[in-house]
């Protein structure tokens, strides 16, 4: 792919109506989408918070003022703004700010894994069902409906109980309850794409089902899946925090935010900050995902964004 020729700005090259290559067209479409997203202030705030979260997680050792695991029983339950502890300390004298900073890594870890597992599983099931049709479709969609009809949190609880508590099992349980909507979306997209002319053209060129699904159907499903993933991430964070709160997710002394709230619950009335701070962190991140998801929906899927 070539950049702009001489006498042409990058902006002009990206804004052109007459792309010179497939990659040029892609870059141009991406840039147009970005411009639309940038005009949405709420979405940009969300994106900003998430970028910040990434940076915080990446530079946790540099940013955190204390070791998140070191206990200091003499300095336990210090209120916020006390010396050396901006957000105070918990019942074991650990610095809450440092624990929040390290906890961002766990949150990102969970979110990333679920964001990979659930949509990919849903994409597989949905496209196979939609493309194959017939019995395969009936069975796979019935299965999807069964999982969709389940109460998600209760099911995740039961899964974690069966698999044992821990972050990885929490991820697995959340993914197991999160894939059906993606399968529905992927199937719907596949059904509309399957009967289109260009698929017939590809078929005439001799392409098999595998090639058609992976090269011609999957790429078109991606954008609606991305929107859904972004909107779902808030729910994933809340579910992970809920499992952590119940003691079924990350185990102590891990600085997972939900587990931190659970530790602070015991002395909520006397030492409010221990439970309050991690809750604010969860709220901020899940709000950021919701804001970004709303904005992305307007850009990628204009028909659904009713204002």
């Amino acid at each position, binding site marked *: 792919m070539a950049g702009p020729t001489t006498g042409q700005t990058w902006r002009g090259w990206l804004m052109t109506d007459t792309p010179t290559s497939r990659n040029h067209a892609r870059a141009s479409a991406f840039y147009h989408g970005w411009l639309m997203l940038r005009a949405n202030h709420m979405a940009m705030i969300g994106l900003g918070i998430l970028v910040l979260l990434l940076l915080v997680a990446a530079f946790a050792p540099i940013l955190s003022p204390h070791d998140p695991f070191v206990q200091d029983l003499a300095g336990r339950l210090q209120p916020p703004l006390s010396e050396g502890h901006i957000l105070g300390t918990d019942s074991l004298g650990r610095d809450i700010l440092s624990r929040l900073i390290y906890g961002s890594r766990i949150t990102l870890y969970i979110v990333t894994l679920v964001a990979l597992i659930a949509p990919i599983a849903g994409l597989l099931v949905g496209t196979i069902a939609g493309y194959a049709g017939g019995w395969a479709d009936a069975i796979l969609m019935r299965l999807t409906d069964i999982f969709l009809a*389940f109460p998600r949190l209760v099911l995740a609880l039961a899964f974690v109980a069966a698999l044992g508590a821990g972050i990885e099992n929490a991820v697995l349980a959340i993914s197991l309850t999160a894939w059906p909507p993606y399968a529905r979306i992927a199937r719907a997209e596949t059904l509309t794409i399957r009967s289109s002319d260009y698929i017939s053209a590809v078929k005439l060129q001799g392409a098999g089902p595998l090639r058609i699904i992976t090269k011609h159907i999957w790429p078109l499903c991606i954008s609606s899946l991305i929107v859904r993933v972004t909107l779902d991430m808030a729910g994933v964070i809340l579910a992970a925090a809920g499992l952590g*709160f119940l003691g079924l997710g990350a185990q102590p002394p891990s600085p997972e935010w939900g587990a931190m709230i659970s530790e602070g619950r015991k002395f909520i009335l006397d030492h409010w900050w221990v439970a309050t701070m991690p809750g604010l962190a969860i709220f901020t991140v899940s709000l950021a995902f919701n804001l970004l998801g709303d904005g992305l929906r307007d850009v990628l899927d204009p028909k659904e964004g009713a204002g």
Partner: protein
Amino acid sequence: MALAEPNGGGRPRAALFSRYVVVALKTLLSIAVTMSGLLLVTFVIGRVMPIDPVLSMVGESASKATYDAARESMGLDKPVIVQFFYYFRDVLQGDFGISLLNSHPVSEDIKRVFPATLELATLGTIMGIVLGVPLGVFAAVNRGTWIDQVARVVALVGYSMPIFWLGLMGLLVFYGILGWVGGPGRVGIFYVDLVPSVTGMILIDSLLDRNWTVFKDAFSHIILPASLLGYYSLAYISRMTRSFMLEQLSAEYITTARVKGLPERTVIWRHAFRNIRVQLITVIALSYANLLEGSVLTEIIFSWPGIGSYITTALLSADMNAVMGGTVVVGLIFVLLNIFSDLLYKVFDPRAR
């Protein structure tokens, strides 16, 4: 529906009737399939649980003979398929086995705790409807203004807030600092078991007993958790109401009504709102189902003795039968409400037939 329909003219009554029969049969089949799936999943969960149910029943020190006898009496010596069949048969008869924790039948435990959850979720849903529907309508009518923005922020915050944290904050502020509401639990310690249990829902029981002191106390305990659930319900209901209303308000018949000179209030409530009622009931049913489930974490925060607390306590003490029973009951209600809302849509919205 893949049924041939005569075009135009009055529809023969017999055809209409047979269509309802088909819908009913399909619905029943769908409930049956989904419930079998639910039972299969809970069965598998119960199987892979890393706990030996026999051992937790007879204890570590039991002899081999006692162990084998217990194993046989629990049916665990049979092939897995047969075990599933037994499980299926028992559940159909409303038998979820014996709780390992307190040796009561699980079904009786669930009967005892369920009204508490129902009371909480119902009050929450009522709050969600009473506040959420008007908020959604006003947001749609005043689209793009500050009212719309406020409604949007209210809903977004609701979607993003961890409910158990909001519950803790509510307890801290309204119980701990302000002292406006009762603390955790359903009633204060002095009022426990003061009114005879008829429905299991203390608000209604105390009304039936005309015991105003208990009613007031129970109300002061339920108001905070119910408001929390109500807020979540409000977030969802107001957003959906708004988008349904926007769809109606852009329709041509609304323009016609306005051109005719009808007052705006009539246009909004008599014309537009009437047409979203079916969709709205669907949404409310879904939201109700979500609250029944979503109350798990709320119940724990407020020490509310409902089905959520029951399942979680059972989980943490590895009481397998109780976990499976609780999951099946919540799942069943969830499925039924889902199907009910689906059905409602099919029956009342001619376009969905």
